[in-house]
């Protein structure tokens, strides 16, 4: 099963994924429509811990704490991608899911999908409609450093395994020297 993997060492915090996600989930599908639109939302958020950037979004766990915690049955599993998705009609915005989520990937707001104009749980829907037509999730396509990759776990782990081993055994740097220098200097800013 394919998943979105994050090579956090490659994330430069440009937030292109955030913008692409917001465009994908906006009815007008245009960056201009986002400006000043409070109903626009992004399901991925770039956060920084010390000097590491991380594009964080739902991991679509299975079993998922949020699905178990939801008292109204609003969180369901999609059959196609086995993704965790929200049914805004069923959601009571009780925030149980947000409280139990280990990745803090669920927020609440009014969106274009809000029934009765109220807040509901907002989270990554895996861009299922894009995947169905053979595209990657929007955030993955937007990432120019390949920090976000959409692949099955086996191939991700394999390529990572190889790179890590190369770096550990023969000291092969995964980063160009100038980027390494940049990261070292950046640590001094903290």
């Amino acid at each position: 099963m394919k998943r979105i993997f994050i090579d956090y060492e490659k994330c430069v915090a440009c937030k292109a994924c955030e913008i692409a996600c917001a465009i994908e989930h906006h009815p007008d599908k245009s960056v201009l429509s986002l400006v000043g639109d409070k109903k626009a939302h992004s399901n991925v958020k770039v956060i920084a811990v010390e000097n590491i950037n991380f594009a964080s979004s739902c991991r679509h766990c299975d079993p998922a704490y949020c699905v178990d915690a939801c008292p109204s049955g609003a969180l369901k599993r999609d059959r196609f991608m086995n993704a965790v998705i929200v049914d805004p009609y069923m959601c009571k915005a009780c925030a149980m899911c947000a409280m139990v989520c280990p990745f803090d990937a669920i927020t609440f707001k009014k969106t274009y999908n809000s029934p009765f104009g109220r807040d509901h749980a907002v989270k990554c829907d895996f861009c299922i409609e894009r995947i169905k037509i053979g595209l990657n999730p929007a955030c993955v396509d937007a990432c120019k450093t390949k920090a976000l990759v959409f692949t099955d776990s086996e191939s991700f782990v394999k390529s990572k395994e190889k790179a890590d081993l190369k770096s550990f055994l023969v000291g092969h740097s995964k980063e160009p020297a100038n980027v390494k220098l940049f990261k070292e200097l950046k640590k001094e800013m903290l």
Partner: protein
Amino acid sequence: MDEKKRSIDKAAIEMFNILDKRGYDNIWDRLEAQKPQCGYGELGVCCRICSMGPCRINPYGEEPTLGVCGADADTIVARNLVRMIAAGASAHSDHGRKPAIILKEISENKIKDYHIKDTDKLIGVAKKLNLYKEGDSYLELAAKISDCALKCYGKQDEEPISFLKAYMPKNRFKKLENIAESIEKDSGMSVGFLPRNIDRESVDILHRTHMGTDHNPLTLIVQGLRCALADGWGGSLIATELQDILFGTPHKREINANLGVLDEEFVNIIVHGHEPILSEKMVEKSMDKALIDYAKSKGAKGINVVGMCCTGNEVLMRQGIPVAGNELHQELAIMTGAVEAVTVDVQCIYPSLGKLSECFHTKFISTSEQAHFPGSLHIQFKENRANEVAEKIIKVAIDNYLFRNKHKVYIPDVKSKATVGFSVEGILEILGGTLDPLINAIKSGQILGVAAIVGCNNPKITQDYFHINLTKKLLEKNILVVGTGCWAIAAAKGSLMDMDYLNNLNVPLKEVCKSLNIPPVLHFGSCVDCSRLLVLLSALAETLNVDIDKLPVVGSAPEWSTEKAVAIGSYFVASGVPVHLWPMPPIFGAPKVIEILTKGAKELVGGYFFVDGDIDKTVETMEGIILERRNALGLNVPEYIRG
């Protein structure tokens, strides 16, 4: 944010209690809200020059390695960097244009509100420029000097500008000519380091960085250095020299620095920004009896004009006006609730001041046709009605005194004594008319060398932490520290310019300073006054008959934030001075650019950049550079170092 992380300034730390309790919008919170900041921007590999973009290069060496037009990381970074230099040099040089125009109008009797204040300087500058003729009237000299200055902005031939020709030491001039020739010989590319026209060098950068023009990081950077030299030995130098003529050459004086200079019982007016043209008038008018009486009629004891940032430095140097703080103090000053008006001209003024001043009675008054801010009250400044405008602004401030909310007033009782006001002329006077005592002290090792530090604050760095600690540690290494801008205000606030600070030192420098009755840390003025440092270096180089790149001097711009700082750093490098930078400039996405700026430049021009966030290591490198240069000059390593 942890208060120790925001600032080490005592007054600032007191103000954070108020800021945190009342939740005012502030620069540190806005920085947090921006985090994490975009890595493409930090690395310099984002190009927004044409509409085929925006493009960014994958810094990890994978695709995309080229922008849409085909530009690689080195081209993109070099283009972005030299555009920063063009903007910084333009800001300084456009500042210099104004006193040149005023001087011209004085000579033509077209302006009544300004006069020539320092005729000695007028004659001195005329002599330096080789324009002096016995029997010339002051107005004739003013006409010649202003004409010469304005030609540096407007002439269209290929000759180097005359201010640079007159002020740059001949060895440096020759060296820069020679490097250009040798590059041409080796590569067949025609390049130049010596600026032909101050404005043209910025325009040249805008031209060559246009899509599809110059893509060679070396030629781009050489033009960047040429533009920077047009700033240092052109625009900034003209600003300093002509402002001295108009408002007086600075001499040693004592002032107070920090928010404690605001006075609860007075009408407090802050002059903030960079130019002295309006602020000199504000200072003058604040002593006008009628206006003081008017202030008294509103219940105040008088009018208290204080400075901030480089406008503050300008009036501090020439008029001894106290300074309320440097860049990161601007919001905190309004939060004291005791400021009737913040009058601003240009540069380094946060647009946040409009919204913040709405929380208080404070009037945020913009005055320049080039600088407008949301929520400001705009009172248009015009040179030919300067008295009238200054008076109007002071009246607005006085009228505003009644609206001060006493419950919101909190002025930290923090201010430091500082001995300031050093110009090259002032130094010569102190030394008895010649630089020999300074040179002898350097030769004998009583002074190891000179470090020139220039300002800015940057919320990414604890306010004043790098400035103060770097300076202290350089002093411990027996290095005389001189400098300008927000660094100078930091040093003043940090009591390093207090004569008593000498007692904390245990190096030979202490005795030199004591005998000359100067502090070990010398305030050379505003950031355009970095030109005074060039003039000082020039005088040292000429006296010793060596090039600047042989002198035991080193520069630093810790806590830098503006494009002007990039221009200043670049003209010091191009003049032969190694320059430390912190925080990181946006160049690390481009290996060739790093190579040129940190190594190639050393071979070419003698000056180069180095980047370090560790204060101890920075001091070590700076001391190493000075020792290396002393060694090359055949000066002994002083005994106290060997021992």
